[in-house]
């Protein structure tokens, strides 16, 4: 038996948002009498962390502490339209809608504060939950006091509406000319593998990735996507299929005994660096890092297998059986 080591690389792009655009998302923000802000979204957190990053974007734009912002997702009776959470669109689309809504709410807040502080709205700044006159930090009022005044003294709303939509691009049926994306994130993954030439088993030793995702809203959660995507990508490359003998329907899988995904014992070393080149149209320069993290490991692993044992396995998943058959064919001179 020989264990062969190999290294492969792969570089990928990933488009943010629905292909061709036309996928709007809205946000509503209103301020409560004591200065808390409620953000109303019909969007979904499926584990990627939308509630957290949207809270960060809202707090940043409003200039209030994070704990003054409540993110309410998931009720069509109280929140306006959102196309949905998919296509790596959440942070980009919803983030932009929230910035727009937060700016409008902040403008209303500053108008009330301007009256309270006897200053022009454009001379005011909001930071850490306080409104103060630029260059005169002692002339200030808390957002709490301004909100109270708005509600009970001035009879004014502090609220905002936001929407983001990239208009739908037409597509030329003859040439395919179209505008398919809002922005593109990029990544390169390096896979180090070991291949057992008697069993065809592939062990991924290490996945090392460089990601460029625009601005990171929450670096630990970006890392969470990279680590999680690396393992899912590894599984797509080596383990997963519901039709093991595709296109045949035979042995269609029906359980986690037959459909293999990794356990904690299969996880390779994973390391990553993140570059930030802000996009022109994302909220604070965000591009997005949802789906793409599962993509680059797949070809990187396939290329590493070639590097290790000199066979191209281009039919996913790369089962040990496919590797062994290819090695036998190679040995037979085919």
């Amino acid at each position, binding site marked *: 038996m020989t264990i062969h080591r190999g290294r492969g690389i792969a570089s990928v792009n990933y488009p943010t948002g629905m292909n061709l655009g036309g996928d709007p998302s809205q946000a509503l923000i209103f301020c409560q009498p004591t200065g808390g802000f409620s953000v109303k979204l019909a969007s979904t957190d*499926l*584990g*990627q*962390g939308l509630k957290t990053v949207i809270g960060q974007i809202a707090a940043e734009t409003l200039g209030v502490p994070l704990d003054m912002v409540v993110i309410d997702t998931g009720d069509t009776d109280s929140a306006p339209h959102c196309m949905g959470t998919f296509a790596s669109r959440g942070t980009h689309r919803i983030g932009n809608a929230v910035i727009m809504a937060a700016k409008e709410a902040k403008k209303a807040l500053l108008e009330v504060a301007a009256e309270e502080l006897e200053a022009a709205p454009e001379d005011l700044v909001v930071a850490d939950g306080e409104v103060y006159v630029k260059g005169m930090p002692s002339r200030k009022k808390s957002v709490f006091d301004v909100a109270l005044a708005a509600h009970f003294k001035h009879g004014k709303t502090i609220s905002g509406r936001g929407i983001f939509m990239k208009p739908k691009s037409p597509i030329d049926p003859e040439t395919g000319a179209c505008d398919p994306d809002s922005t593109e994130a990029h990544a390169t993954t390096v896979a180090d593998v070991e291949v057992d030439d008697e069993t065809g088993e592939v062990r991924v030793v290490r996945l090392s990735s460089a990601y460029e995702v625009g601005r990171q809203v929450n670096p*630990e*959660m970006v*890392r*969470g996507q990279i*680590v*999680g*995507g*690396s*393992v*899912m990508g590894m599984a797509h490359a080596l383990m997963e299929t519901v039709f093991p003998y595709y296109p045949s329907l035979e042995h269609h899988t029906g*359980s*986690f*005994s037959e459909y293999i*995904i*990794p*356990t*904690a*014992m299969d*996880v390779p070393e*994973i390391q990553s660096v993140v570059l930030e080149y802000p996009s022109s149209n994302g909220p604070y320069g965000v591009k997005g890092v949802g789906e793409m993290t599962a993509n680059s490991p797949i070809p990187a692993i396939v290329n590493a297998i070639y590097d290790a044992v000199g066979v191209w396995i281009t039919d996913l998943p790369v089962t040990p059986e496919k590797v062994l058959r290819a090695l036998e064919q190679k040995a037979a001179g085919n």
Partner: protein
Amino acid sequence: MATITVTFQLNGKTTALAVEPLTTLRTALREHLHLHATKAGCGQGGCGSCTVLVDGEPILSCLLPVALVEGQSVTTLEGIGGPGELHPLQAAFYDHFAAQCGYCTSGMILAAKALLDRNPTPSREEIMEALSGNLCRCTGYLPIIEAIEDAARQMEAVV
């Protein structure tokens, strides 16, 4: 409809309930006692999301008729800590972003607790082995493993 009565210790409290005879522990917990931390991920013993502790050992509550825990002690995630009084494992999972969608989290924490109760200073390999019955589709496991390592250190330091 036939029913049976089962009495057991649930998170330290004596609990009795009347259920259909072959009701699983998972169904008893979720649908009769309304403790929802324990999840129904597959019903096949394949994912570990229904893991609870029976007399301190991890078991899959989807495959265990509740009649068989008569007289035994059952611990669910609700029993080890709640908001404001997090168990060190819960605190570490929170700190390390070890829960993304959160659906495997209860089973993961209880599998880890069974390990640390028996082996307070596990190696990384022992942690990975202890989690081998629990699937996570989001995190890629590393944040979970790191959280358990951290929790073990914290719990050792307290001892």
